[in-house]
C-alpha cells in the first residue's frame, strides 16, 4: 500500500531520497517481519498442504488413544488431549486468527475513514457528533461489552466475533483519521483545490483521504495484531469462538487445565500467537516511523 502512496505524495511532502520505501528498505527488521508475515499468510492460504508436510493434513483426525503425545515421531508438535495433531491445528488456527484480524481491521478502517473524514474535514456539528460517539464507545469497557454482546448472540463464528470486536474498536482509529484529516485539510494544496472550485467529493477522494491514510495504515497494521490478541482473550475466557472452530485461543483455553502435566499443549499455539502479533506490531511501528520521520524517537 505504502508503495503506491509514496510516489504520489513524494513531490508534496518529502524529497525523493527520503521516500517511504527507501526508509523501509534500509531496515532489517522490516524484512524480518515481512518474511514472517508472508510465511503466515502462506500458511493461512494453504493450511491443508502445509499441515500435510509432516504427514498429518487433517486437524480433525483425532485418535483418543494417542492423547497428549509428546512432540516427535508422527506428530511433530505432539498431540492434544483429544489425540489431534497439534501442528495441523496450529496451522489451521493461523487461518482463523489472520482472518479475524484482517476482517476486523478492514471493518474498523471503513467506519473510521468515513466518520473520521467527515468529522475532520467539515468540523462543526459533524465533528461534535462523531467526537461524542467515539467518547461513548471509548468509555465502554471493551472486555465487558464484548462479553455481554457475545453472550447474547447464539452462534459464534469467526465473522460474528469479528463484527463484535470491530464494533468496539473503531473509535480509536476514527479519532486518528480525524486528526490526520485536519492536518491535511489546512495544507496549501487542499486550499488551492478548494480555491479552484473543485467539488468536496473530488477534494476528499483525490487529496485529503490519500494523504491522511499513511499514519492510519501504520496503526491499522498494529491493530491487526491487537485484534488477534483480543480474539484469543475472548475465546480463552469462553465467550469467543467455540468448537468446532479451530483457533489459537481455543487451543490455549483447552490447554490451560492441563498445563501442569502437558505443557506442550500450551507452548506451540502460544509461540505462533506471539510471533504473529509481534511481527504485526513491529511492522506497524516501522511503518509509522517511515511515514512520520518527525515522530521518530
Amino acid at each position, binding site marked *: 500500500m505504502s508503495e503506491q502512496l509514496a510516489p504520489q505524495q513524494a513531490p508534496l511532502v518529502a524529497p525523493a531520497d527520503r521516500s517511504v520505501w527507501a526508509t523501509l528498505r534500509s531496515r532489517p527488521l522490516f524484512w524480518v517481519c515481512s518474511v514472517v508475515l508472508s510465511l503466515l499468510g502462506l500458511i493461512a492460504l494453504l493450511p491443508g498442504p502445509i499441515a500435510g508436510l509432516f504427514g498429518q493434513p487433517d486437524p480433525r483426525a483425532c485418535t483418543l488413544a494417542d492423547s497428549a503425545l509428546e512432540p516427535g515421531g508422527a506428530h511433530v508438535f505432539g498431540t492434544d488431549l483429544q489425540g489431534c495433531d497439534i501442528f495441523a491445528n496450529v496451522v489451521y488456527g493461523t487461518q482463523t486468527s489472520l482472518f479475524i484480524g484482517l476482517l476486523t481491521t478492514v471493518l474498523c478502517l471503513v467506519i473510521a475513514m468515513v466518520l473520521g473524514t467527515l468529522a475532520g474535514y467539515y468540523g462543526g456539528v459533524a465533528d461534535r457528533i462523531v467526537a461524542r460517539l467515539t467518547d461513548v464507545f471509548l468509555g465502554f469497557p471493551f472486555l*465487558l461489552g464484548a462479553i455481554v454482546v457475545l453472550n447474547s448472540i447464539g452462534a459464534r463464528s469467526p465473522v460474528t466475533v469479528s463484527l463484535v470486536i470491530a464494533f468496539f474498536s473503531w473509535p480509536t482509529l476514527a479519532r486518528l483519521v480525524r486528526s490526520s484529516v485536519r492536518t491535511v485539510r489546512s495544507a496549501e494544496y487542499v486550499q488551492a483545490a478548494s480555491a479552484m472550485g473543485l467539488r468536496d467529493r473530488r477534494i476528499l477522494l483525490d487529496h485529503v483521504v490519500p494523504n491522511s491514510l499513511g499514519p492510519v495504515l501504520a496503526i491499522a497494521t498494529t491493530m491487526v495484531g491487537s485484534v488477534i490478541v483480543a480474539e484469543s482473550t475472548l475465546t480463552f475466557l*469462553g465467550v469467543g469462538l*467455540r*468448537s468446532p472452530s479451530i483457533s489459537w485461543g481455543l487451543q490455549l483455553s483447552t490447554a490451560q487445565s492441563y498445563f501442569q502435566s502437558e505443557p506442550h499443549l500450551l507452548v506451540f499455539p502460544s509461540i505462533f500467537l506471539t510471533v504473529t502479533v509481534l511481527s504485526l506490531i513491529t511492522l506497524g511501528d516501522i511503518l509509522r516511523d517511515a511515514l512520520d520521520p518527525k515522530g521518530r524517537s
Partner: protein
Amino acid sequence: MRRKQRTATAGVLLVAAMALTACATGGSDAADDGTRAITMGVTDPGTLTPGRQLVAYDFNMAVWAPLTFLESDGTLTYVQAESIESDDNTTWTITLKDGWTFHDGTPVTAQSYVDSWNTVAYGPNAFENSGQVANIVGYTDLNPAEGEPTGTEMSGLTVVDDSTFTVELIGPDSQFPLQVSQAQTAMYPMPESAFDDLDAYNTHPIGNGPFELQDDYVENEPMVVTAYEDYAGDEPTTDQITFVPYTDDTTAYTDVQAGNLDISSVPASRLPQADEEFGDSFYSFEAPGISYLGLPLWDERYQDVRVRQAISMAIDRETINDVIYGGAYTPATAFTPAIEPGTPEGICGELCEYDPEAAKALLDEAGGFEGSMEIYFPGGGGLDEFYNAIANNLRQNLGVDATAVPSADWAEFSDKRTASDIDGPFFSRWGALYPSQQATLRPFFVENGGCANCIPWYDESVKAAIDTADATDPGDGSAYADVQELILEEFPAPPLFFETYSYVTSDAISELVTSPVGNPRLTHVELAD
C-alpha cells in the same frame, strides 16, 4: 440433578467468577483453638430450606436428620424413625423415636412431618423439590392444573399420635423407605416456627440434625454450623463445619491443594491429575448417577434402532474414561447405575462395547446417516472435552460429519431440550437421590418423571413395567430386570457412564467417608491428629 444445577451457574459469570474467587478464600482450619473444625467448598446455595434447595445437599445432610439412612453396605438403618412398616406397600406407618428435638428445643413430632410435607406439596408455595412427595394421595389436590388448590393438606397423611403417622401412596411402592433416606431432603421435618414465615426460615433454617446453623445465611458468605448439644442421634466426629461458597470449583480445588480448604469436589478438568496430585486424599465415591447420549427421536434419521446401536458401539467408553476422567468413571453396561441394587450389569452386552467395524457395518446396513450431526451440550460446565471426544469417535468410526456444540448456558440448553428443539445427540444425565433403580428409571422413562426429554421415548409398556416392579420388588431390585429388557429392545439412547462423585481433602483429614448417594458423610469425617 445436583451436578446439573452446578452446570447452570458456572457458565455466564466467568469474569465475575474471576473477580470474586480471589476473595472467597477466607475460611481455613479453625483447629487452632482446639475445636475439631473443618471447611468445605460449596456452590452458593441461594435456598437452604430442604424442600427448596438444589445445591445444598451437604449442608442439609448436616443440619437435618433423615427418617432412614442407607449405609454403604446397602442396609437401611433408622435415624429419626423408630420403624416404617406396611402390609400392602401402599399405606405406610411411620413411628418416630422419642426425645428428639429441633435446634430451637421443640420436640420432633408426627405433626412436624405432616405439616412439613404439606408445605412442600402445597402448589402456591412452589417448592422446588415438591416432586419428592408427589406420590402421596392428595398431592394433585394441592397442585391442580388450573386455579387455586382447594385445601392445604394432603388427604394421604394422617397423624395417629404424637410419634406416629400414616402415609397413603397413590399406588403400591416397595421403595418408600428409601424415599425418606438421607438425600431426599424434601422429606425432612421443619419446626412449627418455620410455617409462620418461610422466608425467615430459609435465612435461618432450624433442623433436627447433628449440626445447627450459627448465624443467618447471607449470600456468598461462609455458613458455619456447630454440633447440636442435644442431638439424640450418633455424635458427629467434628464440632464445626464451615461451608465456603465458591463460584468456580477449580478455585476450591486449588485452595484444598494450598491447605486453605479441607474438602472440595473435583472439577472434571482436574480429574486426570487429581490422583497424582492428592494420592490418598483423592476420593472417588460410587454414586447413583448415570450419563446417556440423548438422541433426538423426533428426527427421522434416528428412527432405526440400528442407527442408535451403531452410535453406541462407535463410542470408545474405556479410552474416554481414561483420558478425560482419569479412569474415575465406569463405562456403563446397563441402563441404571451399578450401585443401585439389582442392576443387571452387562445387560447392554456388545451394544455398549467399542467395536468400530461392527458399528460402521450396522450403520451401513441401516442405510447410513445423512447430513451432519451436531452434539449439543450445556456450555460452561467443563463438558467440552467429553463431547468433543464423542464427536471424534462418531466422525472417525462412522464417517458421519459429527461436531460438538455447546449452548451458551444451562438455561438455553434446558429450554431447547424441553421444547424438543435439538436436531442432534445431546447431553443427558441423572443423579438419583436414593440408590434404587426406580430413582433412575422414573426420571428417564416416565413422562414428567423428572428429566424432561432426557430420553424422549415414553412407552406405556415401560411405565406399566416400572409400576409393577415398584409394587412387587422384594427389596433387592430384581423386579426391575424386566424393565431393562424392554429398554434394551428399543435401545432409545446409548448409556455412557456410571458416575462417581470425586472429592479431595487437605492434610487435616485422614479419611473421608461416604454413603451410597455419593456425597461425603460429614458426620463421620476422620480428622488427622
